[in-house]
């Protein structure tokens, strides 16, 4: 085999892994975007909900030996409930407050959850003890856990899309992001829509936890690996824009994956964040932003 053919296969493998990573990042950003678009609040602690979900999976599956699909369903439901609690206890009382107060409050929740997890679970890295096989196609390696995560993320995003476009509640969620003041004229109780959206945002975080725990160890600070990148993806895709977040997730994932091919994997992240900073100069309103 000549050297250039080998190189192309590595590139192809990086592109494929980028697509698989993009699916999961898109799922992460969808949850955050939904919350921001509908409630106009950024859940800074979003990735810490994922961290709790990953611990939930660890305890249910590895410690209490629940079947994995039972653990996954319980995990999604519990994190959805956490999302509702977060809204009722922290966000709703601050809806009339200045945005900076809301950011600080959810930021406070982030550190609260990190410290609480450290106290409760310790700082050791934990994992499911589950090794999914690696698929080998034409000299390329793709792990089943990544494929599964990608497929599950894609399917759930399609379901959310259908729900947003085909149901009354879903239509109201899209509408409230465009004009929240007149929702009562349509007969919509905004408080109920906020609760439904918080449950959905939490549920998506729970699903992300189920998928990420297949690939990563869980520890109290694991949210730092996903939180900042999810937020940057949302900003790059124009905060609150669902389609923009989807596109930006794949752009980011490809930069990380292909960028990491030439140097170390960590360099992929350096490129991705540098790209983000440059984009903030070039298109501060985001990829899908409307210039007003």
């Amino acid at each position, binding site marked *: 085999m000549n050297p250039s053919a080998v190189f192309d296969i590595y590139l192809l493998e990086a592109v494929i892994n980028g697509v698989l990573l993009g699916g999961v990042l898109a799922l992460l950003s969808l949850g955050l975007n939904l919350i921001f678009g509908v409630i106009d609040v950024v859940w800074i602690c979003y990735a810490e909900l994922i961290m709790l979900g990953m611990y939930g999976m660890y305890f249910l599956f590895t410690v209490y030996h629940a079947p994995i699909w039972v653990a996954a369903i319980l995990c999604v439901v519990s994190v959805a409930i956490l999302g509702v609690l977060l809204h009722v206890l922290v966000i709703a009382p601050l809806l009339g407050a200045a945005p900076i107060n809301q950011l600080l409050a959810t930021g406070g929740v982030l550190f609260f959850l990190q410290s609480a997890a450290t106290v409760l679970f310790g700082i050791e890295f934990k994992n499911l003890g589950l090794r999914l096989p690696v698929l080998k196609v034409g000299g390329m390696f793709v792990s089943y856990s990544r494929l599964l995560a990608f497929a599950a993320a894609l399917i759930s995003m399609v379901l959310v899309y259908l729900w947003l476009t085909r149901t*009354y509640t879903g*239509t*109201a969620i*899209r*509408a409230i992001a*465009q*004009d929240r*003041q*007149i*929702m*009562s*004229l*349509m*007969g*919509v*109780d*905004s408080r109920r829509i906020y609760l439904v959206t918080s449950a959905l945002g939490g549920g998506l975080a729970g699903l992300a936890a189920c998928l990420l725990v297949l690939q990563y160890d869980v520890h109290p600070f694991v949210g730092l690996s996903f939180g900042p990148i999810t937020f940057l993806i949302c900003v790059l895709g124009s905060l609150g824009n669902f389609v923009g977040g989807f596109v930006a997730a794949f752009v980011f994932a490809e930069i990380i994956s292909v960028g990491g091919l030439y140097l170390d994997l960590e360099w992929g992240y350096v490129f991705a964040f540098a790209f983000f900073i440059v984009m903030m100069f070039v298109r501060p309103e985001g990829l899908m932003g409307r210039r007003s």
Partner: protein
Amino acid sequence: MLELRSVSAGYGTFQALFDVSLDVKAGEAVGVIGPNGAGKTTLMRAISGLIRSTSGSIHLEGSDLAATPSHRIVELGIAHVPESRRLFPRMTVEDNLRMGGFAPSARPKFRQQLDVVYELFPRLRERQRQLAGSMSGGEQQMCAIGRALMSAPKLLLLDEPSAGLAPVLVEQVFELVKRIRAGGLTVLIVEQNVQQVLRVVNRAYLLKAGSIRASGTALELQATDTIREAYLGV
């Protein structure tokens, strides 16, 4: 049908309405005219529950609107076409109409009301898949009225339907109002365009600085000098 008794309302410490009493009977078209800043929009908002009156009473067919949560008022039979239309610009015409029929009482009638609206405004049927924000001002006004009609209201509130439209479209909008009236729907319409609105309503009230200054049939109001005085202050 609609009964306001000594209603006061405002925003925070600013009071915009003072002791307004007003009646709309079933089948009537009633206008509220008055200069800019007279409190016309505040009046509409107080009726549909977008803001809460600070005193007085508002009843629709005996139901106390002040005691009804604002998102339930549409179910009692009031649909409000807000000032400057307030469509959902990045949603299709049909999604906008679907939002108008969101109330649980309206959902079973969705198909039927959609036919009513499309028959009234055939242009909307042609544009049902188009984004509402991409249509012309006149078409958007049709969509805004159509959205309100989706709840099959007993009373339609129209806030400045001609505002911001080119003169030729203003004519069209009042034609639309006449078309809706032909179906016998009760309408309360707020307008700055006095001459036009007096042609489509039975009665009208003159609102100035938050109080009702005059009322009467359209002909009576046209005949008096009250309107000219209210607008020009002479």
